[in-house]
Protein backbone atom coordinates (compact mmCIF):
# COMPACT_ATOMS: atom_id res chain seq x y z
CA UNK A 1 0.00 0.00 0.00
CA UNK A 2 1.20 3.48 -0.76
CA UNK A 3 1.49 6.37 1.67
CA UNK A 4 2.48 10.01 1.76
CA UNK A 5 4.11 11.94 4.56
CA UNK A 6 4.13 15.69 4.86
CA UNK A 7 6.36 16.21 7.90
CA UNK A 8 5.43 19.83 8.53
CA UNK A 9 1.93 20.80 9.60
CA UNK A 10 2.73 24.46 9.03
CA UNK A 11 5.23 26.49 7.04
CA UNK A 12 5.61 30.22 7.62
CA UNK A 13 7.62 32.44 5.31
CA UNK A 14 7.92 36.13 4.55
CA UNK A 15 6.71 37.42 1.21
CA UNK A 16 9.50 37.38 -1.34
CA UNK A 17 11.37 34.56 0.37
CA UNK A 18 11.65 31.07 -1.09
CA UNK A 19 9.00 28.56 -0.10
CA UNK A 20 9.49 24.82 0.30
CA UNK A 21 6.83 22.29 1.28
CA UNK A 22 8.18 18.83 1.96
CA UNK A 23 6.75 15.50 0.87
CA UNK A 24 8.03 11.95 1.06
CA UNK A 25 6.24 8.90 -0.25
CA UNK A 26 6.19 5.13 -0.09
CA UNK A 27 4.95 3.09 -3.05
CA UNK A 28 5.65 -0.18 -4.83
CA UNK A 29 7.33 0.50 -8.12
CA UNK A 30 7.46 3.84 -9.86
CA UNK A 31 5.02 6.55 -8.86
CA UNK A 32 2.97 9.30 -10.30
CA UNK A 33 3.22 12.27 -7.93
CA UNK A 34 0.94 15.26 -7.61
CA UNK A 35 0.61 18.50 -5.70
CA UNK A 36 -2.74 20.11 -4.98
CA UNK A 37 -3.62 23.37 -3.25
CA UNK A 38 -6.76 24.06 -1.26
CA UNK A 39 -7.99 27.54 -0.46
CA UNK A 40 -10.50 28.07 2.38
CA UNK A 41 -13.91 26.58 1.66
CA UNK A 42 -12.81 25.39 -1.75
CA UNK A 43 -11.99 22.05 -3.33
CA UNK A 44 -8.48 20.89 -4.16
CA UNK A 45 -6.87 22.51 -7.17
CA UNK A 46 -4.26 20.68 -9.24
CA UNK A 47 -0.82 22.37 -9.27
CA UNK A 48 1.58 20.00 -10.95
CA UNK A 49 2.52 16.36 -11.49
CA UNK A 50 5.54 14.17 -12.03
CA UNK A 51 5.23 11.34 -14.55
CA UNK A 52 8.69 10.55 -15.83
CA UNK A 53 11.72 12.27 -17.26
CA UNK A 54 13.07 15.54 -15.90
CA UNK A 55 13.16 15.49 -12.12
CA UNK A 56 12.19 19.16 -11.93
CA UNK A 57 8.61 19.80 -12.96
CA UNK A 58 6.98 23.17 -13.33
CA UNK A 59 3.37 23.91 -12.57
CA UNK A 60 0.84 26.65 -12.05
CA UNK A 61 1.43 29.98 -10.30
CA UNK A 62 5.22 29.73 -10.42
CA UNK A 63 5.41 26.53 -8.41
CA UNK A 64 7.81 23.73 -9.19
CA UNK A 65 8.64 20.41 -7.57
CA UNK A 66 11.71 18.24 -7.50
CA UNK A 67 11.47 14.47 -7.69
CA UNK A 68 14.22 12.60 -5.88
CA UNK A 69 13.94 8.85 -6.34
CA UNK A 70 16.72 7.88 -3.92
CA UNK A 71 15.16 9.94 -1.15
CA UNK A 72 11.58 9.13 -2.23
CA UNK A 73 10.76 12.81 -2.00
CA UNK A 74 8.77 15.29 -4.06
CA UNK A 75 9.22 18.70 -2.45
CA UNK A 76 7.20 21.65 -3.67
CA UNK A 77 9.06 24.93 -4.18
CA UNK A 78 8.51 28.50 -5.15
CA UNK A 79 11.45 30.91 -5.48
CA UNK A 80 9.55 33.96 -4.24
CA UNK A 81 6.40 33.47 -2.18
CA UNK A 82 3.35 35.73 -2.35
CA UNK A 83 0.79 36.45 0.35
CA UNK A 84 -1.78 34.92 -1.99
CA UNK A 85 0.09 31.58 -1.79
CA UNK A 86 -1.23 31.17 1.75
CA UNK A 87 -3.28 27.98 1.61
CA UNK A 88 -3.32 24.26 2.43
CA UNK A 89 -1.08 22.11 0.24
CA UNK A 90 -1.46 18.38 -0.36
CA UNK A 91 0.99 15.94 -1.84
CA UNK A 92 -0.45 12.78 -3.44
CA UNK A 93 0.95 9.56 -4.90
CA UNK A 94 -0.42 6.96 -7.28
CA UNK A 95 1.38 3.79 -8.39
CA UNK A 96 1.90 3.47 -12.11
CA UNK A 97 -0.34 0.44 -12.44
CA UNK A 98 -3.04 1.52 -10.06
CA UNK A 99 -5.77 4.12 -9.98
CA UNK A 100 -5.73 4.78 -6.26
CA UNK A 101 -4.53 8.26 -5.32
CA UNK A 102 -3.35 8.64 -1.71
CA UNK A 103 -3.02 12.05 -0.09
CA UNK A 104 -0.83 13.36 2.67
CA UNK A 105 -2.34 15.13 5.66
CA UNK A 106 -1.56 18.54 4.23
CA UNK A 107 0.71 21.48 5.08
CA UNK A 108 -0.66 24.90 5.89
CA UNK A 109 1.42 27.63 4.30
CA UNK A 110 1.27 31.16 5.66
CA UNK A 111 3.06 33.92 3.80
CA UNK A 112 3.31 37.13 5.79
CA UNK A 113 3.55 40.53 4.16
Amino acid sequence: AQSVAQPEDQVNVAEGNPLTVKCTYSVSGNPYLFWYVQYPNRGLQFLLKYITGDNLVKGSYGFEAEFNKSQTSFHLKKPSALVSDSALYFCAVRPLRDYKLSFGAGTTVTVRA
Partner: protein
Amino acid sequence: EAGVVQSPRYKIIEKKQPVAFWCNPISGHNTLYWYRQNLGQGPELLIRYENEEAVDDSQLPKDRFSAERLKGVDSTLKIQPAELGDSAVYLCASSLATGGASPLHFGNGTRLTVT
Protein backbone atom coordinates in the same frame (compact mmCIF):
# COMPACT_ATOMS: atom_id res chain seq x y z
CA GLU B 1 -14.76 24.47 -19.38
CA ALA B 2 -17.08 24.29 -16.43
CA GLY B 3 -15.61 22.62 -13.38
CA VAL B 4 -17.04 19.96 -11.10
CA VAL B 5 -20.23 21.26 -9.54
CA GLN B 6 -21.44 20.13 -6.14
CA SER B 7 -24.49 21.02 -4.12
CA PRO B 8 -25.33 21.98 -1.49
CA ARG B 9 -22.24 23.81 -0.23
CA TYR B 10 -23.26 23.46 3.38
CA LYS B 11 -25.65 21.17 5.20
CA ILE B 12 -26.54 21.03 8.88
CA ILE B 13 -28.67 18.15 10.07
CA GLU B 14 -29.48 16.38 13.28
CA LYS B 15 -28.14 12.90 13.88
CA LYS B 16 -30.26 10.07 12.55
CA GLN B 17 -31.56 12.25 9.72
CA PRO B 18 -30.87 11.44 6.06
CA VAL B 19 -28.79 13.66 3.79
CA ALA B 20 -27.87 13.63 0.12
CA PHE B 21 -25.13 15.31 -1.87
CA TRP B 22 -25.14 15.89 -5.61
CA CYS B 23 -22.27 16.12 -8.08
CA ASN B 24 -22.03 17.04 -11.74
CA PRO B 25 -18.60 16.16 -13.16
CA ILE B 26 -16.72 17.85 -15.97
CA SER B 27 -18.25 16.98 -19.31
CA GLY B 28 -16.54 14.00 -20.88
CA HIS B 29 -14.96 12.76 -17.67
CA ASN B 30 -15.93 9.13 -17.33
CA THR B 31 -14.34 8.58 -13.93
CA LEU B 32 -16.01 10.04 -10.86
CA TYR B 33 -14.84 9.88 -7.26
CA TRP B 34 -16.36 10.71 -3.91
CA TYR B 35 -13.90 11.62 -1.16
CA ARG B 36 -14.39 12.49 2.49
CA GLN B 37 -12.11 15.05 4.10
CA ASN B 38 -12.02 15.25 7.86
CA LEU B 39 -10.72 18.36 9.53
CA GLY B 40 -6.94 18.57 9.37
CA GLN B 41 -6.61 15.56 7.10
CA GLY B 42 -6.23 14.75 3.45
CA PRO B 43 -9.12 13.43 1.39
CA GLU B 44 -9.94 9.72 1.65
CA LEU B 45 -11.62 7.83 -1.15
CA LEU B 46 -15.15 6.56 -0.54
CA ILE B 47 -16.14 5.30 -3.97
CA ARG B 48 -15.02 5.41 -7.59
CA TYR B 49 -17.19 5.14 -10.69
CA GLU B 50 -16.27 4.23 -14.22
CA ASN B 51 -19.24 5.54 -16.18
CA GLU B 52 -22.24 4.21 -14.26
CA GLU B 53 -20.42 1.30 -12.63
CA ALA B 54 -19.08 1.53 -9.09
CA VAL B 55 -15.71 -0.18 -9.56
CA ASP B 56 -14.36 0.45 -6.07
CA ASP B 57 -16.64 0.94 -3.10
CA SER B 58 -14.46 -0.90 -0.61
CA GLN B 59 -14.12 2.19 1.63
CA LEU B 60 -17.80 3.07 1.60
CA PRO B 61 -19.60 2.30 4.90
CA LYS B 62 -22.39 0.40 3.25
CA ASP B 63 -24.58 0.15 6.31
CA ARG B 64 -25.45 3.83 6.05
CA PHE B 65 -23.87 5.20 2.88
CA SER B 66 -25.08 4.68 -0.66
CA ALA B 67 -24.24 6.22 -3.98
CA GLU B 68 -25.46 6.14 -7.53
CA ARG B 69 -24.44 7.52 -10.87
CA LEU B 70 -27.34 7.34 -13.22
CA LYS B 71 -26.53 7.41 -16.93
CA GLY B 72 -22.86 7.76 -16.10
CA VAL B 73 -22.97 11.52 -15.54
CA ASP B 74 -24.33 13.06 -12.34
CA SER B 75 -23.88 11.29 -9.05
CA THR B 76 -25.57 11.33 -5.67
CA LEU B 77 -24.09 10.29 -2.34
CA LYS B 78 -26.51 9.55 0.47
CA ILE B 79 -26.15 8.98 4.20
CA GLN B 80 -29.00 7.43 6.14
CA PRO B 81 -29.03 7.76 9.06
CA ALA B 82 -26.31 10.32 9.71
CA GLU B 83 -24.08 10.05 12.78
CA LEU B 84 -22.06 12.70 14.58
CA GLY B 85 -18.85 11.22 13.16
CA ASP B 86 -20.04 11.85 9.62
CA SER B 87 -19.35 15.57 9.99
CA ALA B 88 -16.78 16.31 7.29
CA VAL B 89 -16.37 17.83 3.86
CA TYR B 90 -17.54 15.56 1.05
CA LEU B 91 -15.65 16.14 -2.15
CA CYS B 92 -16.55 14.99 -5.62
CA ALA B 93 -13.86 14.71 -8.26
CA SER B 94 -13.68 13.61 -11.87
CA SER B 95 -10.92 12.68 -14.27
CA LEU B 96 -10.60 12.02 -17.96
CA ALA B 97 -9.22 8.55 -17.42
CA THR B 98 -8.64 6.13 -14.63
CA GLY B 99 -5.19 5.91 -13.15
CA GLY B 100 -2.14 7.05 -14.98
CA ALA B 101 -1.21 10.67 -15.02
CA SER B 102 -4.71 12.11 -15.29
CA PRO B 103 -5.13 14.61 -12.48
CA LEU B 104 -8.34 14.73 -10.51
CA HIS B 105 -10.51 17.81 -10.77
CA PHE B 106 -12.35 18.57 -7.55
CA GLY B 107 -15.56 20.38 -6.79
CA ASN B 108 -15.80 22.84 -3.90
CA GLY B 109 -17.28 20.19 -1.64
CA THR B 110 -20.23 19.94 0.70
CA ARG B 111 -19.51 20.69 4.34
CA LEU B 112 -21.74 18.47 6.46
CA THR B 113 -22.34 19.22 10.12
CA VAL B 114 -24.24 16.62 12.11
CA THR B 115 -25.56 17.87 15.47
